[in-house]
């Protein structure tokens, strides 16, 4: 009897220790998530926040995929939820704003954004704050002595004044990665840069898209102005899409490959069928 009680107590103790340690172990396994957020404004186009999540697990940096991030607009003590996004397999997500008027600035006309992750069974919760002021880049192409330049002016929208001494990057859009024209261009006392575009840059129908970028500024975030201009070298697109070629799908087989082999195939099989009918002739005669 005594032995039975001891056994039961021993079993209960073991079970409790197991349950406690396992729940502690589960909690201990949780890793920290690092959030990154960038504010990007494309002039006369979209405004978005590029978000990414990563974590250091077992000594390795990994992208944290499929986690939900909530985006808030902080105005004083108020927290206004703007929406939610889920990271992709590379741990990235993009939250696009309708326009800047859909969020509110604080009393200093600074926009404050907070991105939060509530945590899950593998990762602890995390948050990231982001502040930026509104600025614009006005860019256009000017031609001086037959040389094409991109002229861009940076304007602080809060004070409606130009920004002097700001570094801007000038590049041309390409298929995989922009082609850098000049990286460090400081705005002058008029808040303007003037950068020459070298001739001979190829573009479809001679059009190229020149980008002027204020890159990842602490005060204004990333601002990009894109100017489309017919100042590139004309390239003739040599696409054979929808043509009958050797590399087309079967519906676009070259005609000679349909006609000649089929003539051969039907010709040979015609003779084979004739020979088989000869066997019937032999049977009947």
């Amino acid at each position, binding site marked *: 009897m005594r032995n039975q009680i001891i056994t039961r107590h021993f079993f209960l103790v073991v079970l409790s220790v197991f349950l406690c340690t396992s729940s502690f172990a589960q909690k201990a396994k949780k890793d920290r998530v690092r959030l990154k957020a960038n504010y990007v404004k494309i002039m006369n186009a979209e405004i978005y926040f590029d978000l990414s999540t990563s974590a250091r697990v077992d000594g390795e940096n990994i992208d944290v995929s499929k986690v939900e991030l909530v985006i808030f607009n902080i105005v004083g003590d108020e927290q206004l939820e703007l929406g939610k996004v889920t990271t992709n397999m590379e741990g990235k997500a993009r939250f696009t704003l309708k326009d800047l008027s859909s969020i509110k600035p604080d009393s200093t006309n600074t926009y404050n954004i907070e991105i939060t992750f509530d945590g899950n069974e593998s990762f602890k919760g995390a948050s990231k704050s982001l502040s930026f002021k509104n600025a614009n880049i006005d860019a256009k192409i000017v031609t001086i002595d037959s040389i094409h330049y991109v002229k861009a002016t940076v304007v602080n929208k809060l004070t409606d004044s130009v920004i002097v001494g700001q570094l801007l990057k000038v590049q041309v859009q390409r298929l995989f990665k922009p082609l850098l024209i000049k990286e460090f261009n400081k705005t002058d006392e008029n808040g303007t840069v003037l950068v020459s575009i070298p001739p001979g840059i190829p573009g479809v129908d001679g059009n190229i898209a020149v980008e002027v970028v204020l890159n990842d500024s602490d005060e204004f975030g990333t601002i990009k102005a894109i100017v489309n201009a017919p100042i590139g070298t004309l390239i003739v697109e040599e696409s054979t899409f929808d043509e009958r070629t050797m590399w087309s799908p079967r519906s676009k087989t070259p005609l000679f490959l349909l006609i000649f082999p089929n003539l051969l195939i039907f010709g*040979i099989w015609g003779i084979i069928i004739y*020979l088989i009918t000869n066997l019937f002739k032999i049977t009947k005669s």
Partner: protein
Amino acid sequence: MKNYDKLLNDLAPQKFGKKGVIWTISLTVLIILGILAYIDQVIQGQVVTNMNDYALWGVYISNFVFFVATSFVGTITVAVLRLTKNAWRTPIVRIAEIISVAAIIMAGLTIMIDMGRPDRIMNLFIHGRMQSPIIWDVIIIPTFMAISLLLLYFPLLPDFALLKKYFKDEKPTQSKWYGKLALNWTGSDTQKAVQIKSIHLIALLIIPAGFMLQTVDAWLFSTLFRVGWDSTNMGAYFISGAAVAGIGALVAVVYAVRRAYHLEEYITQLHFDKLGKFLVLTCLVYLYFNINEYLIPEFTSKKEEITHLNVLVTGEYAPLFWFVILGGLIVPIIVLLFKKGRKPFPMFLVGLLVVAGSWWKRYLIVTPTLLHPFLPIQGVPESWHHYFPSIHEWLITVATLAMALLIITILFRYVPIIPIQRTADEREELESNKNTEK
């Protein structure tokens, strides 16, 4: 009046003797082992093979190309010798037709074995593009199979009718089957006219069809921009190689059949002498194309070509390469140039050597090229730089070769190896010529 009795006694199909039974059982065992290996391959996938991302065609494709080449024997001997009116061909044409049928059937089966998902075979027809040489192959193989079967069947009609009578009392069931296969053959003038016309037409048809088959097979390789394959020589190279493989196989089988069925009276030294001369001619033509294939890249010395050639001539594949060139071509040419070398037994050895050389030649065409892509092989296990077939691949390949031999064996068991009617006709013609001369 023709006397068929002796011919029928000598040439009518006979039951297997003790050796024949052992031979058939051995082939069956090899086939069963191959089938078991293939079932395992279907269940586990092609992971059981040693093929990889680089050597994506292995021994199966080499074996397929060998079968396609061997099937050319029907074209090169039966049709060409018929159209050039070489009367000595009679005792060997049936053997050639049977080898051709067995080889093309096995070529079709072998290509299916190479498919990772054989259940998707219909997709070849449903989604096939005429721009792809693979589709040309899918079309030409059944076409050539049909022609080869007709080439075998038409000349058999009178023989089936003779066998029907011959086995009437002794083996009535077999006689009944021969009767059905004879298609009411009576030897009437109308039947003879239709038969002769048909055989002539098939002989005309099988030559372009055979050339197309070999050329399409060559284009499977030469249309790919790969070292060792990207050559305009390939079509002619494959046709001449197929002639060598086909006649080599024919010589070996003719000798074995002559000995097994005691056909020395019908298949004489003259036939071996003629076949020997034919084989040496094809070997010389093939040697010429081999010189073209290897010498021009050596002269132009492109880096990739030189790497490939070095691997063949002095590298990993050198023993096989020299066996193929010396054993499969040079030695046969030297032996066959002498009359003594064209005697039956030396011819048999030469035939075996040529067949072995032809098989390994296909292996050398397929594998080393795949292991030398233009972009270097990087970031993969060391074993991926090499290829040698796995046990599964060997078992399946040996089984396909055994299956081809079993088809030949079974056909020899049930159809006359030497055309009875035609032999009788020729003998009668010979007799009447003698009488006229007297």
